[in-house]
């Protein structure tokens, strides 16, 4: 293969599409009728708790598992029955899976060698990649002699060495400490954009998902609950589970008192509120109101004019940019509030009133 082709591959418009993918184990939870499309050049993250099936999806795409049924298409080509080494996919493994008996440069060169590139091309490409991940001085060192962050970058360079059409990343930053993880998130994003590689990324860390993804798929129990950009999901979660998984949220039980033309009147711990009508809701229904902690307003008791809930400050934690308060409400539930406060405001034990703008309230009917 000519070196120019290496560049060409990433210029084409491949995308990944999973159709009715199912994987049945004898014991583990199954993946059932899983459908997903990843656009060319996009970084899509599968986000979910451990055991939700996200790693199964990744291993199916890599070819380490065979689906019970369903299809995997890359750029329109069906690769469902293709062996992993014929798929032309790059992968960064959890804990990196670097070859301990090979130096940094040899690890990066491995895939190029297996695909029969010429020596000169390999040498040049490895040098380029070492430069890309800023490890040129460490070319001759072995994995055991590298720090965690360096190993991570070698793994990334190895995965993109032969300019694969598709990159898979399985919790690639799980083993790093927080500071390094944040730096590497930006680094991965930079390299992924620079190479324009379609990427399927798996993590259970919501901040990481929000920082690096074009789109996020929230998964639970082998299904995608919601697919969208971080802000779409954060602002309009489809259900309580998603709302709770991406970001913090307070839930309040509500009861529908009456339904009018375009509005419904709801009685809740935050007082009686009027919200836009939801399909299928009738008087007497129970539903849940959700409010993000930073959308809550807090006032001294008696100072509030709008519908509000009264309570007592239970805990108060200074988090730097904001103060986090846990307030005990009259009905013995509690609510979380994030606000910019002075050190003297709302100390534990003080009676307070909580309120929230109607437009910031989410309604969950299930």
């Amino acid at each position, binding site marked *: 293969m000519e070196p120019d082709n290496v560049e060409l591959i990433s210029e084409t418009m491949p995308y990944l599409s999973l159709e009715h993918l199912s994987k049945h184990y004898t014991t583990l939870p199954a993946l059932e009728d899983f459908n997903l499309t990843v656009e060319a050049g996009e970084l899509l993250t599968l986000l979910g708790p451990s055991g939700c099936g996200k790693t199964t999806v990744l291993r199916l795409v890599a*070819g380490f598992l*065979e689906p019970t049924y369903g299809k995997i298409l890359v750029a329109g080509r069906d690769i469902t029955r293709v062996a992993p080494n014929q798929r032309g996919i790059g992968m960064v493994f959890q804990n990196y899976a670097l070859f301990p008996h090979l130096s940094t440069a040899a690890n990066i060169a491995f895939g190029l060698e297996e695909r029969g590139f010429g020596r000169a091309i390999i040498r040049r490409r490895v040098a380029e990649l070492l430069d890309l991940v800023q490890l040129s001085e460490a070319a001759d060192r072995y994995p055991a002699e590298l720090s965690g962050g360096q190993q991570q970058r070698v793994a990334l360079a190895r995965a993109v060495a032969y300019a694969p059409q598709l990159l898979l990343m399985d919790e690639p930053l799980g083993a790093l400490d927080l500071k390094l993880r944040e730096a590497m998130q930006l680094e991965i994003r930079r390299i992924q954009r620079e190479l324009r590689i379609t990427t399927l990324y798996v993590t259970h860390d919501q901040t990481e998902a929000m920082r690096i993804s074009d789109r996020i798929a929230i998964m639970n129990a082998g299904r995608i609950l919601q697919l969208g950009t971080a802000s779409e999901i954060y602002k309009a979660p489809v259900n309580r589970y998603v709302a709770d998984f991406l970001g913090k949220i307070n839930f309040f039980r509500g009861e529908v008192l009456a339904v009018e033309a375009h509005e419904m009147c709801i009685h809740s711990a935050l007082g009686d509120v009027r919200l836009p009508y939801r399909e299928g809701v009738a008087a007497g229904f129970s539903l849940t109101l959700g409010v993000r902690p930073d959308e809550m307003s807090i006032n001294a008791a008696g100072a509030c004019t709008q519908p509000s809930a009264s309570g007592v400050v239970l805990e108060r934690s200074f988090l730097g940019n904001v103060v986090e308060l846990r307030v005990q409400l009259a009905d013995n539930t509690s609510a979380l509030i994030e606000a910019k406060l002075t050190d003297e405001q709302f100390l534990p034990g003080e009676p307070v009133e909580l309120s929230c703008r109607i437009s910031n309230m989410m309604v969950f009917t299930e």
Partner: protein
Amino acid sequence: MTARWGWFLIVPLSISLALTIGTQYIFIEKSFFRELGLGQTGSFVGLANYAAALRSPLYLNSIVTTLRVSVLATVGCLLLGYPLAYVIARSRRRGAIVMLSGVLLTSLVSAPIKVLGLIIIFSKEGALNRFLTGSGILDAPVNILGNETGVVVGLVYYSLAFAVLLIYSIIGTIPVVLEDAAAINGAGRVRTFWRVIIPLSLPGIAAVSLTVFSLSMGAFAAAALMGGGRVLTLPVLIYQTVFLDTKYATASTLSAILLVIVLLVNAAAGLLMFQFGTKPYRMTTIVAPTCLEGFRDLIVSFRVSAGRRLFPMIRPLGRILSMAWVGATYVVLFAPLVVVVLASFNGGSFRAGAIVFPPHHLSLDWYVATPYSHFRAFGISLVLAFIATALACLIAIPAGLGLVRSRAPARGAIAALFRMPLQVPVVIIGLAFFYTCYAIDDAVGTSLAGSFLALVVAHFFILTPFVIGSVTAILQRFDDRLEDAAASLGAGRWRTFSRVTLPVISPGLFAGAIYAFMVSFGDVPISLFLAGADVTPFPVAIFHSMEMDFDARVLSSSTIAMAFGLVMLLVVQKLTGLDKLARSQAGAHG
């Protein structure tokens, strides 16, 4: 804190030093005195015996033959064992346990019994030759009994199962994800094997080869019986020199030469491995030849690499080939045992001529007529194995704790000393204890020679490395914070040991103990030197019977012994509830 662990080493170390250095010194010393024959030695002659031995064509030939058959046996074990070990290590849990059990079962069968099966298979009138000549594949029957080929085959049988267990534990240390990484980087199955598995297992494989080589160099029963007394390897020659020629000084000289050869090869290999060891990618640590991971995995049923898709990744042809290879290896492993079991039901006359395969008729004649001496020998073997194993366990706990926890100087050397009984060819250990018994008897008037006590001490000596190795391995993985946690919860040192440390290491101790028990139960060379007229362990009884009168009832007695081994394995697994413990451990290790 670490200082006190050093004290744990004192008792095991003194015992080990006394038994190793003491016995070796006594036998080597004999080689410096004039040979008078009839077990007598004369004046000090320095190295004259060595000079004579190395000028003798008989002895020189024997040295070359021993080296040649040992190298061939080592190569054979690797070729047969590596693919099988790889498949087991990468199989799904249940399959792995079944396959491991098979290997273990054959490793626990005493050498004379395997040879018995081989003789039945390969004899001129035997099943194989009748088939080969009858079907016209060969004109004349193959004859491997009484020649070097036969000895190599016998030696491969002697070490193969052990080799598989060792290789299995080495491959288990190579993460499967590295194979995934190679695959996603474009490497096919063969390339992955060549570029990842082989380089990473190389140091371990070198260690295994060395172990198998040392085992073969000291193997006695397989060489003596398959060679039919015509292939004179050093162990066979040493045995004949002691018992037929009663030339004790000459036997000493030959043993010392054998010892030096084995130690030189070990040292050379050790230097080579040191090169590996200094590389930063040293991953498979140089495995002590005592690693019994396979055995422990079976006993406690955990850590068998779970749910690997070995087969889905291989193309159909490769899948069929690898399964065929594994299947063939099992046929090879089990054939002699199956033949012994089936032939034991032939019945009729006790003479050797009645041993035929396949049996002409089914009868329990030989079982009914099991000679009393076989029963007695069986009982002696059981008691002997039990006492020796119990003693080995007693010494293994402090030895393991001391090795792993203390900062004692030269821990590496101490560990090597504890491993010595495995490195020294067994036939030499037998000879050394034999001479030592006589030396002590002469000096203080005891009657150790031919006594049960001598057998117990010698067996204890060869069993210690198995139990120490197993305990050490599990202690190395022991999370020290467990003890800190117990202490913080108010447990004193003794309570911490009995409630936390001991339960956690007990699977290792137990696995080592079971294996040690079976090693003792199947030993020939040591017992052969030390057995007295009244105390003949079972394998020695079988050996004598095969070497001399060839009573057909050795078949039935051997079958009973194998059945006993099988039942013991099953009972141990059922009764101990170690599965429960294993599950809690698997949880702790993630």
